[in-house]
């Protein structure tokens, strides 16, 4: 059997991590193909319900990454993200999501190598954890929809 290939979703801010990942590209550094990036203006934009939704739609691991503290393009967005993240960790825990599947990190526009490393680390770790399939146990699709109050479906 082929080895399990996890799917990792990365929520990244436009100014630091997205640019950092661009730099990884311009520097031609290699990393695992398993990651799919969602570009947002700022980590402050991340409604953490989005993470639940990602898990609900087949993600095995998640990366949230933005500017370093103090470097936020919007001066304080990432600070809010960090504060909310603390609260949200507990919710994730409650929802039965292994916190090892969710990585919060700072990657600046100058840290191309760090991005490659981060992706590889997370992919390896999630690969070791195996596929994520417990989700429906605690939260069904309906309650998720309520939580996120957005229509589900294509």
């Amino acid at each position: 059997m082929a080895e399990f290939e996890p799917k990792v979703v990365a929520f990244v801010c436009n100014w630091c991590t997205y640019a950092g990942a661009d730099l990884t590209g311009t520097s031609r550094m290699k990393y695992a193909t398993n990651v799919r990036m969602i570009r947002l203006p700022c980590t402050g934009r991340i409604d953490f319900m989005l993470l639940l939704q990602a898990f609900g739609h087949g993600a095995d691991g998640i990366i949230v990454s933005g500017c370093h503290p103090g470097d936020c393009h919007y001066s304080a967005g990432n600070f809010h993200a960090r504060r909310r993240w603390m609260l949200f960790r507990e919710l994730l825990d409650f929802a039965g999501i292994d916190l090892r599947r969710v990585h919060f990190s700072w990657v600046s526009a100058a840290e191309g190598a760090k991005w490659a490393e981060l992706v590889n680390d997370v992919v390896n770790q999630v690969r070791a954890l195996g596929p994520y399939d417990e989700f429906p146990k605690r939260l069904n699709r309906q309650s998720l929809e309520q939580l996120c109050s957005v229509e589900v479906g294509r």
Partner: protein
Amino acid sequence: MPRIGVFICHCGENISGTVDCAEVAKVSAEFPGVVHSVDYKYMCSDPGQNLIKNAIQEKKLTGVVVAACSPRMHEPTFRRACAEGGLNPFLCEMANLREHCSWVHEKLPATTEKAIDLVRIMVEKVKRNRPLFSINVPVTKTALVLGGGIAGIQAALDIANAGHKVIMVERQASIGGHMAQLSETFPTLDCSQCILTPRMVEVAQHPNITLYTYAELEKLDGFIGNFRAVIRKKAKSIDEKLCTGCGVCFQKCPNKKILSEFNTHLGTRTAIYVPFPQAVPNKPVIDREHCMYFQKGKCRICEKFCPTKAIRFDQQDELIEVNVGAVVAATGYEVKDTDFFPEYGYGKYPDIITGLQFERLASASGPTGGVIKRPSDGRIPETIAFIACAGSRDPAKGISYCSKICCMYTAKHAMLYKHKVHQGKAYVFYMDIRAGGKMYEEFVRRTIEEDEVHYVRGRVSRIYDRDGKLVVRGVDTLLNAKPIEIEADMVVLATAMVAQPDAEELAQKMKVSYDENKFLSEAHPKLRPVEMNTAGIFVAGACQAPKDIPETVAQASAAASKVAGLFSKDELSREPVVAVVSRTGPPEFSNCVGCFLCESACPYQAIEHEEIKTRDGKLIKTVAKINQGVCQGCGTCVALCRTKSIDLQGFTNEQIFAELVSL
């Protein structure tokens, strides 16, 4: 029904080298809603862009996905192409197949699979894009210039001469900054005050410039084109309208022993004073901390003698609110003091002075009338040692950068000394000579060759006193690292140029960024050297990094031309990536429950209160409203709002969710 067009770029070999572009195009064509899917060698080329324009018209596209390089590179290109093709530019999205895929992965099936996924994600997003329209905001054509050194003066004059209003704020009693303190300037040795003072006067007399001295910025908010600044005008304790600048008051003031800041503590001034004779404005202020009346309740001699009765002991600080469209930060630098150097005696030897103090000694208008005298006993030094890189290039002391100007001014100082004291001996201890500028190297060579200043390559380890001399213990690394001891009468430290002590505070007030050394940060070190990260705020002079006068003036003029460019339009248009609060029909009108959590989270104070009223004016509810001129589109409020009443245009909940679902 959506009709989406997909365009896959090869970027020569850059993408097609690892991604099977034809396959991506083929699979993409099958996505629901996609009606057109092609691949092409160079999408950004003219023919590539034409492919898009034609397809929009022929296939009646409602959305476009260009799968190519990073949107940070070519998003504007393709949005423009769409607009030219007749499609709202915000109905175009890019999938990043190059930086995020082909360049970072090997040529494997998984790479092409990822490319397909990336296209699918963007197709799902673009289906939910709405046409957006650029936001227009009006521009207030007045500039605020902070700091009245040569940088501020140059910027203010250039902007004012371009026909715009300028408000200049200087915190000292006079404009002029450090340049007013200098003796002669390298590399031409022209007299600093002679070239500066005419410009200071021009500032004072220019009809477009309003000058506030003894004033500071209290508060700044707003956004490009529409800032609101509050200026604190400190109480000068005189009525400027009545004062004629006759100078009787400071001749009579009994408190004469206050160390003069302008003369770098080498001279004295009175409690009511003008910093220097050519000050602009040439009207005194009372330094309340030293005035006997303010401290002890007795004196008022100045008041008694003032012929115009201009003294106002009861004057209060004044807060002035102004509207401006742009800000130029030109607040300059400071130099490190001699007590920064433990190994050179922690500032306890009066004859170890800073370069700036030397400028005052060498200045014809200085405390010694231009005669180089030791502060301790007034003797003319027969041997003088200059120490370069004093505090700069010294990570152990927390300053790793090169101060850039001190090699030059040290050469200048040594030369001026030799011109004034012909039989004197001058030593310069240095590590490298950095003289990269027009005629700079030639200037340094002249110091060495013609004026026979002795340059010793090596850092000084220690200075101590012995019989009224200063023993300078250095080394000559060019002479087999031989320890060298010079007995000098005076030592001049080329101390580091550092940021203003309150630079951090000022930056936070303006919401602009600064570097680890507290110098203000430009938006890009090469390509946007005078803009700051916050739109509408510009930077000039030594507050951004150590620099000499030619560079300062060049940057100030550049900042001024940026301001003039901004002021050349009546309105600004900006990207419509902003937050909006939903409005619904009655009876709710909006899901917003008025909790204003969003208000406290917004880093730009963009959220205001809106009252929803019935036709006859009865208040129904108060909801949040986004000021679209101020909103920068960070989305923090969106993530925070529990009732999901706010959305961010361009990154709506629906769009992001669709991206996730498509995975």
